[in-house]
């Protein structure tokens, strides 16, 4: 089993089916088909978190995690732009801390856009979208410094987080901020659970923008994601069935496994 350098026909077919299902349900939703989304507590809390900062008259912090322009951080920016809109309506200041100089202009741009679309372009302060550091731990210390000196009432952490996650949230907790955090990678979630008020776990992260905005495109995509997941479960069940039925000394010949293991 070498490295998978290229796809085989099975992978291409599987990929196209999953992508097709997702795109199709986006298009269906755009035509106006109503879709259901269950409650996701961590995301429902965002409005409350913004409200708290407004009541206390103190700013909020949004950390985009460590990565540069990546799908994970783009999703974080989608959540950010929703929060900016809420903040703009309630005239609450929001500070964004990025750890990538290439992400900085993108974050700056989406924050400005969100302020504009909320009808308050004058409320945007470019110096509130900050680059802190590309080095993991100086980013952590620098961001903790922002929390402490700006006395943020609410901290949002969405993006790709690693060891620095616990550092940020533990200090945020000690400083008395309400914290909402989410990260697609499971390894830091236990520490978020221990230190944050609300946590967005795994896949809920990618459901966030659909849940928050109820935009048809996004809810449609969410339904498509569920269908693709069902497809994946079907595939796994089939694989388990094959593995079970090929019992015995005759070496397991599981064709599904071969299709998935050997690329070209």
């Amino acid at each position, binding site marked *: 089993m070498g490295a*998978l350098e290229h796809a085989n026909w099975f*992978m291409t077919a599987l*990929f196209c089916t999953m992508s097709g299902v997702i795109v199709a349900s986006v298009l269906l939703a755009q035509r106006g088909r109503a*879709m*259901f*989304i*269950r409650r*996701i507590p961590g995301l429902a809390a965002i409005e409350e978190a913004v409200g708290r900062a407004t009541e206390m008259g103190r700013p909020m912090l949004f950390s985009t995690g460590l990565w540069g*322009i*990546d*799908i994970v951080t*783009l999703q974080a920016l989608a959540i950010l732009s929703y929060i900016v809109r809420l903040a703009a309506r309630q005239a609450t200041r929001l500070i964004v801390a990025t750890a990538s*100089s290439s992400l900085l*202009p993108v974050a*700056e*741009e989406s924050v400005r856009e969100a302020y504009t679309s909320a009808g308050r372009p004058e409320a945007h302060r*470019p110096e509130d979208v900050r680059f*802190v*550091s*590309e*080095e993991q*731990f*100086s980013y952590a*210390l*620098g961001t*903790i*410094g922002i929390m*402490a*000196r700006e006395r943020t009432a609410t901290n949002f952490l969405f993006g790709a987080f690693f060891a620095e996650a616990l550092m940020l949230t533990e200090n945020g907790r000690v400083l008395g901020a309400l914290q909402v955090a989410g990260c697609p990678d499971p*390894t830091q*979630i*236990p*520490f978020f*659970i221990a230190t944050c008020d609300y946590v967005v*776990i795994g*896949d*809920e992260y990618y*459901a966030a923008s659909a*849940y928050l905005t109820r935009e048809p495109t996004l809810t449609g995509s*969410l*339904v498509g*994601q*569920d269908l693709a*997941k069902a497809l*994946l*479960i079907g595939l*796994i069940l089939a*694989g*388990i069935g094959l*593995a*079970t039925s*090929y*019992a*015995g*000394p005759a070496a*397991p010949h*599981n064709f599904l*496994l071969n299709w*998935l*293991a050997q690329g070209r």
Partner: protein
Amino acid sequence: MNPEVAILWAGAIATLGVYTILYRENPISRLFEHIFVGLSAGYLLFTTWTQNLEGKWWGPMVHQRQWYWAFAPVVGLLFYFIYSRRLVWLARLVMGLFFGVAAGTTFRQFFPLYSPQIYKSFKPLLPQAGLVWADVILHHWIFIVILLTVMSYFFFSIPHEGRFGRGLGRSSLLGRWFLMIAFGAMFGNTVMARISLFIGRVQFLLKDWIGHYLSWFAQRAGG
């Protein structure tokens, strides 16, 4: 010059300075925070040149005379147009390119990343080839039940009503419990690594720094 002693003292003072943040954010920790951020920024600047641009851009362009590298800074500097009202769309153009690349990277990584995880989940449910019932139940059955119930927790668009929905609701509740077990295990699994970082620092302070002058400490904390 021989910087060894200066390195030792600077390291010890920096370490103790950072540790003051454990009391609370204070003027000393703030100073070291700024120094740290400054050093990282300077380091970023100089490594961007020495490890990236010098070898990948300046070298090929000037020494190998590949003239088309002249386009790279033009494209890169388009990012800077975010500060211009009229030309901002050019910044969006290059950002769009990077968005596309991010998406394309996800596409091409999909199978290399996930297909091993898919086919390694193909666990037989009956004893075979050296496995006994206890193995199969303790390992494979539990594995598959957890995998499926946790996945069911992440279905968002199906209401937990009706016969199927209620079943899904129950399964996702079970999935949530398994998730918590997993999170606890991950937490416990990280403790040792984090403590050893601190042991490393204490050994530096006691053995390398104090031990440099008092050999009793060097012998004790050596390990």
